[in-house]
């Protein structure tokens, strides 16, 4: 793999600094450079820091930016601020130079000529983060030997969180170098690479702005309001909650205008060019300072009226703000009940109201535009779909959506509308096809399907299942043979919550892996690893007073966790996204964790009035005792940390943070590329299998004891007196303290793992019997956020 160990980021604006942060996230050294401020002292006089003030300030600002650009604050040390003048020669140290300065051709060309070309290392890559300028026009300023190493690497904002990376070569770019960079960007930075062409605004922003402009056109034609359009163009259309106009507010309406202007200016051959003409109403908003969240408001604005924050909506007809009117559309309400995104859009479009009509018109225009422009802007459908999913968070790309709607059905409805369609499109049956573990896409120019190549090191459970790899299945989970003797336990219930079926499959999966394999991976391809134990089941059991059932369920959960921990083959958990409560406990009982970098994990049970009783509290108690023994130290400080994680329901904000929380350990791994995490976990399982020595339930554990619990309770008393926690918080936290310290015994009393599980169960049932716990559970189920009672 091409080694890129040091990168120069030219331009320390919001985007440049955030790109630098993400490079630091990947463990790459970064030189972050910007201009010398006009008022800075001449070189050699005064403080050097003053001359690099722009980059230094941008670096300091990273700590406060929301959402956090860095996985961990300490990663900022990888970024070295400097300036274009004094640090020019240091470009020679860099394997990659990325330009992120003003979107202005002259400015960029001047920077290339004066700073980059004279200082670039002979084999270093040079790229631009331009979102709209022509890569070939930029390349013209470069000597031929640099052009071979020049390309667009277009990050989406915020770079840590947006997966999309649009790569565009210039005419002379070395194809091998392009491929090597794509590999680096994917594997090390976790980016989803999409290849674009040298066309205005590339793929995602071209389609994204068209989609917004089409929404505007049909909104004004139908006389709909801004809030009505956003209600339709959000999740109901398989797009994110921001819909159309809240997204513009977020991006900045001035930015949207700039992209639209750029499109209009450059797309002289586009038959729908007129759509990109910025409407007068929007231009006026920008000139009035209504640029969105960063300005004085946008399509939405929050105002404080009589002490309360009120959301106002912009009326584009009058140019004034009015209280928002919550749209009520039967079609949108019906669509929201549907989980499957394709089915959801079908439900919306089949409605009979204005929302359904509007949805059809904008979606129709957008999909036809994409079909017409496919060959111009991208190599194939999969690049377009990925661009929209990774850059705009659409649940389905345009071509996937066409498949979900049925291309033939779509075509016939368009024809009923009397809209023109390209001939080739009318022949298409579908854009994708999955057969025997392989995914194919339709290539219009070949009138045939071709296999979509998969990068080495990616595992797709969906494709493995299509090839008969699923060896066990029930309604909540499956066991998939992922090769080399490793089985993957996959959750696939709603939000991947864990219930009886999940636990049964864990037991079954372990037995199968022990009998027929060498190891197991726990992973899935859902939106989140798992929201934890199924709370609805707990609520129902409490409501019915089914205490015996509840006790059995908890015991079954613990049994499943213990079977993971003490299986005869290694188990590696590969969480991604949310991993709450029981899901976290599942990971804690695995031999190792290989987490996706964006893993938000924690023992959050206290939020619903419960104690982690799937072995989570037990595990954190034993880990603290073991750490104390290993270090020859008193257990208190280790135990306080582990206790606090549980009592405060702490969630990690990245996988990197899990190490500090003690939920991941030395030797656990973090994968930035979402598609590689299962593969990496599998490698870990294979490595562990080589000399695997199964463990056995711990005995002779020195209980931290009641003095430690009492010291915790002193803190709780003070926190309650200080009004930082409620008396019920204090009650719950005291119970957690009693369990994690090994019950009401003198410190050093020898206890066992099974005894700690028993304590967990008893406390869990005790909490379940409390009215306020039921209130917390019900609140969470209804509102989706914790109640502090």
């Amino acid at each position: 793999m091409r080694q890129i160990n040091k990168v120069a980021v030219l331009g320390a604006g919001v985007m440049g600094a955030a790109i630098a942060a993400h490079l630091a996230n990947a463990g790459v050294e970064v030189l972050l450079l910007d201009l010398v401020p006009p008022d800075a002292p001449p070189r050699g006089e005064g403080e050097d820091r003053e001359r690099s003030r722009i980059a230094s300030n941008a670096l300091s600002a990273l700590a406060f930016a929301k959402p956090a650009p860095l996985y961990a604050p300490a990663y900022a040390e990888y970024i070295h601020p400097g300036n274009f003048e004094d640090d020019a020669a240091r470009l020679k140290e860099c394997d990659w130079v990325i330009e992120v300065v003003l979107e202005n051709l002259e400015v960029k060309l001047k920077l290339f000529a004066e700073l980059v070309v004279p200082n670039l290392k002979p084999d270093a890559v040079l790229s631009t983060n331009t979102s709209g300028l022509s890569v070939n026009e930029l390349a013209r300023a470069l000597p031929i030997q640099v052009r071979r190493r020049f390309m667009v690497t277009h990050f989406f904002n915020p770079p840590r969180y947006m997966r999309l990376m649009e790569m565009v070569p210039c005419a002379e770019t070395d194809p091998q170098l392009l491929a090597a960079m794509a590999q680096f960007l994917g594997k090390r930075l976790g980016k989803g690479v999409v290849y674009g062409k040298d066309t205005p605004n590339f793929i995602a922003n071209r389609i994204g702005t068209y989609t917004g402009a089409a929404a505007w056109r049909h909104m004004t034609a139908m006389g709909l309001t801004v809030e009505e359009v956003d209600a339709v163009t959000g999740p109901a259309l398989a797009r994110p909650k921001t819909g159309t106009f809240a997204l513009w507010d977020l991006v900045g309406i001035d930015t949207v205008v700039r992209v639209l202007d750029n499109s209009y200016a450059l797309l002289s051959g586009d038959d729908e060019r007129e759509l990109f003409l910025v409407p007068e109403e929007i231009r006026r908003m920008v000139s009035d300072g209504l640029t969105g969240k960063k300005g004085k408001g946008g399509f939405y604005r929050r105002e404080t009226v009589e002490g309360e924050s009120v959301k106002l909506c912009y009326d584009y007809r009058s140019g004034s703000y009015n209280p928002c009117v919550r749209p009520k559309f039967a079609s949108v309400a019906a669509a929201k009940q549907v989980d499957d995104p394709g089915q959801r859009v079908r439900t919306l479009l089949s409605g009979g109201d204005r929302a359904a009509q509007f949805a059809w018109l904008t979606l129709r225009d957008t999909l036809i535009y994409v079909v017409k422009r496919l060959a111009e802007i991208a190599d194939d459908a999969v690049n377009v779909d990925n661009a929209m999913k990774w850059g705009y968070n659409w649940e389905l790309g345009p071509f996937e959506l066409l498949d979900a709607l049925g291309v033939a059905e779509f075509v016939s409805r368009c024809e009923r509308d009397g809209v023109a369609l390209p001939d080739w499109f009318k022949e298409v049956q579908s854009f994708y096809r999955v057969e025997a573990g392989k995914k194919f896409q339709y290539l219009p120019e070949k009138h045939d399907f071709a296999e979509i190549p998969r990068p080495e090191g990616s595992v797709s459970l969906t494709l493995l299942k299509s090839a008969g790899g699923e060896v066990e299945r029930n309604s909540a989970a499956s066991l998939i043979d992922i090769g080399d003797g490793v089985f993957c336990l996959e959750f696939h219930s709603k939000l991947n919550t864990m219930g009886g079926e999940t636990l049964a499959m864990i037991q079954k999966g372990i037995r199968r892996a022990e009998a027929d394999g060498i190891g197991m991976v726990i992973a899935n391809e859902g939106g989140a690893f798992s929201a934890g134990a199924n709370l609805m089941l707990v609520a129902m059991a409490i409501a019915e007073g089914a205490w015996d059932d509840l006790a059995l369920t908890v015991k079954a959960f613990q049994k499943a966790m213990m079977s993971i921990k003490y299986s005869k083959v290694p188990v590696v958990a590969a969480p991604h996204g949310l991993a709450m409560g029981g899901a976290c406990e599942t990971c804690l009982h695995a031999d190792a964790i290989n987490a996706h970098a964006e893993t938000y994990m924690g023992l959050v049970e206290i939020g619903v009035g419960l104690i982690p009783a799937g072995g989570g509290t037990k595990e954190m108690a034993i880990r603290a005792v073991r750490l104390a023994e290993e270090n020859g130290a008193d257990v208190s400080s280790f135990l306080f940390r582990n206790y606090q994680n549980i009592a405060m329901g702490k969630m990690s904000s990245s996988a990197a943070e899990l190490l500090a929380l003690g939920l991941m350990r030395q030797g656990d791994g973090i994968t930035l590329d979402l598609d590689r995490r299962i593969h990496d976990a599998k490698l870990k399982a294979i490595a562990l299998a080589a000399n695997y020595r199964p463990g056995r339930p711990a005995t002779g554990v020195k209980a931290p004891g009641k003095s430690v619990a009492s010291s915790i309770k002193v803190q709780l008393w003070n926190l309650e007196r200080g009004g930082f926690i409620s008396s019920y918080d204090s009650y719950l936290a005291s119970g957690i303290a009693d369990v994690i310290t090994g019950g009401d015994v003198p410190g050093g009393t020898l206890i066992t793992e099974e005894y700690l599980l028993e304590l967990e169960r008893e406390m869990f049932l005790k909490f379940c019997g409390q009215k306020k716990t039921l209130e917390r559970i019900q609140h969470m189920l209804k509102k989706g956020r914790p109640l502090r009672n």
Partner: protein
Amino acid sequence: MRTAYIVTALRTPATKAYKGKLRQVRPDDLAAAAIKGVIDATGIDPAELDDVIIGCAFPEAEQGMNVARIAAFKAGVPYQVPCQTVNRFCSSGLQTIATAAERIMAGFADCIVAGGTESMSLIPMGGNKFSANPGLVHAWPETYASMGITAELMVEKYGVSREDQDAFAAASHQKAAQAIREGRFADEIVPVEAQICGLDGLKMKCSVEQVSVDDGVRADTTVAALAKLKPAFKASGSVTAGNSSQMTDGAAAALVVSEDFLKRTGLQPMARFVCFAVKGVPPEIMGTGPIEAIPAALKLAGLSLDQVSLFELNEAFAVQSLVCIDELKLDPERVNVNGGAIAMGHPLGCTGTKLTATLLHELRRRKERYGCVSMCIGGGMGAAGIFEMV
């Protein structure tokens, strides 16, 4: 009964915990500097000492192993001189003077160094391993009320406003700043050689600096600036980092002797030790301790309040100081005339001796007769000592 005299009382500068120049100096070395300062200033032969008594609120780790013994050795006191460490939390440094005086008054000793030391940089409040008694936590958790909470409970009980607390804090800084400007602490401070090390590339750079000034004072602070601070101990509270005492490192020592010793050596005493009283109050409002202790001490001394010219009342919290001043009807003009712990810090076990040093030097400057050192004590106590200039 015999009479006990203070020949001198001196202190090291008090610098901010974690940030100040003494942050890497061990508390036993700080105490040694103070002890040595007293020996050098009085010119006594250390072999003549009958005891060295050092107070410390968390006598463990660098403050452990009978820190008085360790510090005495480092100060050049011969092994024949015995040493003891005393802990009565924040009054430890006053308690050692009282203990020394009492032994002398009883005729059991003639010459004792009494002092206190605390490095809050190195030893956390509560110690390295806080361990509460389970039975007491269950039956009477107030025992372990955090100091901040005791201050907030006093705010509730006595209805003290945020504004009054901040005004008191600002005044403490202004008085301390002026005292430093006028060099009023110069006579009582023993400079300390402090080493600070840091890596410069591959070279370790260590600098040794003579530290002789308190660093906690903010001459430019205002009530408006203090008003911006967030409550530190209670969500809707009014006790902030700005109107509480600072965490500080420091040590202090005094030479306590008998009349016989004075005659024999020809030394001139600064003051006579009059009396010491300590009283218990509810632990959750430990800040009220001086309200009980000061009248008890006055009674022992047979003095009335208006005979006492100056008070050094440890400013654990502004609210606690305000309530004590109000309840005891103290004249604010006579309390902490050179500022207090809000500005200059409260190095727990050192404070009693430190405040005695400040009190005696100020009484001498003003040619006044009686003065009182008092403080509240964690766990619910108050202590007061009275001195008469001679």
